[in-house]
């Protein structure tokens, strides 16, 4: 069960995008601000236009490529995929009134996103409340680790959507079933990463604790918790990423209000422009979640003792 995590908390911040990708199968692209450094021979007083250009050009080119391919596809399908310009016009209309309500099946995109985020927050929060303590206990006691490892190995690879029928059956409602699906998909990374973090507390620190004869409470608060924190936050980040992926699919199946349902609803209306807008909204929300959690993680990552 150790294979799913990082080797050191320090490296975590640098690696997380890559691991996100391998964990979830999708790649939330986090644009980095660091372009190539300005060339040394062109250092002259005044604003470094060249440096700015070199920093801005690659991402701008990437976006341009996307728009180009999109336009070509649009032309190739004779307009059944709308052009970027039509989509942009539609987006302006949609975002000028994101919070309208015209009955249960016709609400603004803002409500849809908020409803999805609420489900993710609930499912994820429950998973954190169960998964993090479970991870601590599994990491601390070898017996429990060996007891739960087979269960985790068996259940973790299951697609979260496979749990949806169980949720519907048990909770007899679409909304709790969606939350249940989020719970089950976000609990594994948190259990596993927390457990590995506990198992990897440097022996040096535990020796310090033994020599200083620290109390169990001090060991937990001053040594275990701070050293596990970066691992735990990695688990949290992976969990949130997965949860955001899964909610869209879950809502397509359960209906109600939510960004996933919105995509499906617009498909039934054959409103492809809105589907494309939804894809962008989903991407941007995912990116923001990821960015916030990376910020939190770096704030709690400390220099490791080199052995």
């Amino acid at each position, binding site marked *: 069960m150790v294979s799913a995590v990082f080797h050191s908390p320090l490296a975590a911040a640098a690696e997380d995008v890559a691991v996100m990708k391998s964990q979830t199968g999708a790649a939330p692209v986090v644009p980095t601000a660091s372009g190539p450094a300005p060339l040394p021979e062109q250092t002259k007083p005044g604003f470094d236009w060249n440096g700015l250009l070199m920093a801005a050009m690659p991402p701008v080119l990437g976006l341009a490529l996307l728009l180009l391919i999109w336009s070509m596809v649009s032309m190739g399908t004779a307009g059944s995929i709308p052009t970027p310009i039509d989509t942009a016009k539609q987006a302006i209309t949609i975002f000028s009134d994101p919070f309208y309500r015209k009955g249960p099946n016709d609400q603004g995109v803002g409500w849809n996103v908020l409803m999805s985020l609420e489900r993710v927050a609930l499912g994820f929060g429950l998973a954190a409340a169960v998964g993090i303590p479970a991870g601590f206990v599994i990491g601390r006691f070898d017996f429990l680790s060996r007891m739960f490892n087979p269960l985790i190995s068996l259940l973790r690879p299951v697609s979260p959507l496979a749990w949806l029928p169980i949720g519907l059956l048990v909770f007899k409602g679409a909304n709790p079933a969606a939350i249940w699906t989020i719970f089950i998909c976000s609990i594994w990374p948190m259990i596993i990463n927390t457990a590995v973090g506990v198992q990897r507390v440097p022996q040096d620190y535990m020796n*310090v604790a*033994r*020599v*200083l*004869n620290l109390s169990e409470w*001090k060991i937990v608060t001053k040594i275990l918790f701070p050293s596990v924190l970066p691992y735990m936050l990695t688990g949290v980040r992976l969990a949130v990423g997965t949860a955001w992926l899964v909610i869209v699919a879950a809502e397509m199946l359960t209906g109600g209000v939510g960004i996933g349902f919105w995509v499906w609803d617009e498909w039934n209306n054959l409103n492809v422009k809105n589907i494309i807008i939804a894809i962008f909204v989903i991407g941007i929300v995912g990116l923001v979640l990821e960015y916030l959690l990376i910020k939190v993680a770096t704030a709690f990552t*400390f220099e490791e003792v080199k052995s």
Partner: protein
Amino acid sequence: MSTEKLNAEFINIQGVAQTFKTRKGAFPALRDIHLTVAKGEFVALIGHSGCGKSTLLNLIAGLTMPTQGHLLCANREIAGPGPERAVVFQNHSLLPWLTCFENVYLGVERVFGAGSKSTGAASANKAQLKERTDAALALVGLTAAAHKRPGEISGGMKQRVGIARALAMEPKVLLMDEPFGALDALTRAKLQDELLEIVARTQSTVVMVTHDVDEAVLLSDKIVMMTNGPAATIGEVLHVELARPRSRVALADSPQYLGYRKAVIDFLYTRQAHVEKAA
């Protein structure tokens, strides 16, 4: 047991052997270790890498238990680690999320704080604990860096915090595992001089693991030279009778100093030269 005898055998190691269980079977690390350390004595353990110096230190610290034999400290069996035998670790082992002050305070609070079980000393209030911590940091010259985190200070400073943490607990014995091994030569010399001064002031009993011949001769009263592992044991014990306080510069060409140095080098490189064979 008379006080005199107790002081002469403050640490008493009797026939200790240590065997580690590995995947390839039992690995005998140490055998037949007999050693006494007097109160206030500075003992250096020297030998090639892999000879079990650190293993012996860990046994005295109580971090590991011997497979055979007994270790006594102040006439009591060493049953586990404790603050009366403070350890300065090779890689400083400071907690990176605490400031230097907090790292030292952690030990001080445990030993002298309210509800501490480990000493009979009257428990002190917060201000006194803080005072002790500040005093320990001042002893190693780190008052200015007290509120920095380990990541923000140099390797030499980290090691000094490690020493301060150990000293602040007023241990009966100070155990040091190659404390200056990871430092550059100049920093190392400076810390050795500081350690000499601190030990003279505090009258500490010190057991130090080292692989540096000059360090051993300069600092110790007794150099314990160990044979090569596996199944290492004490090869020879050299008593260093150089007058204290010792000055690095004055000793550099003293024939007595050079004589001790020669004796250690002779042991390490002539009689125990086959070093890398085991590895």
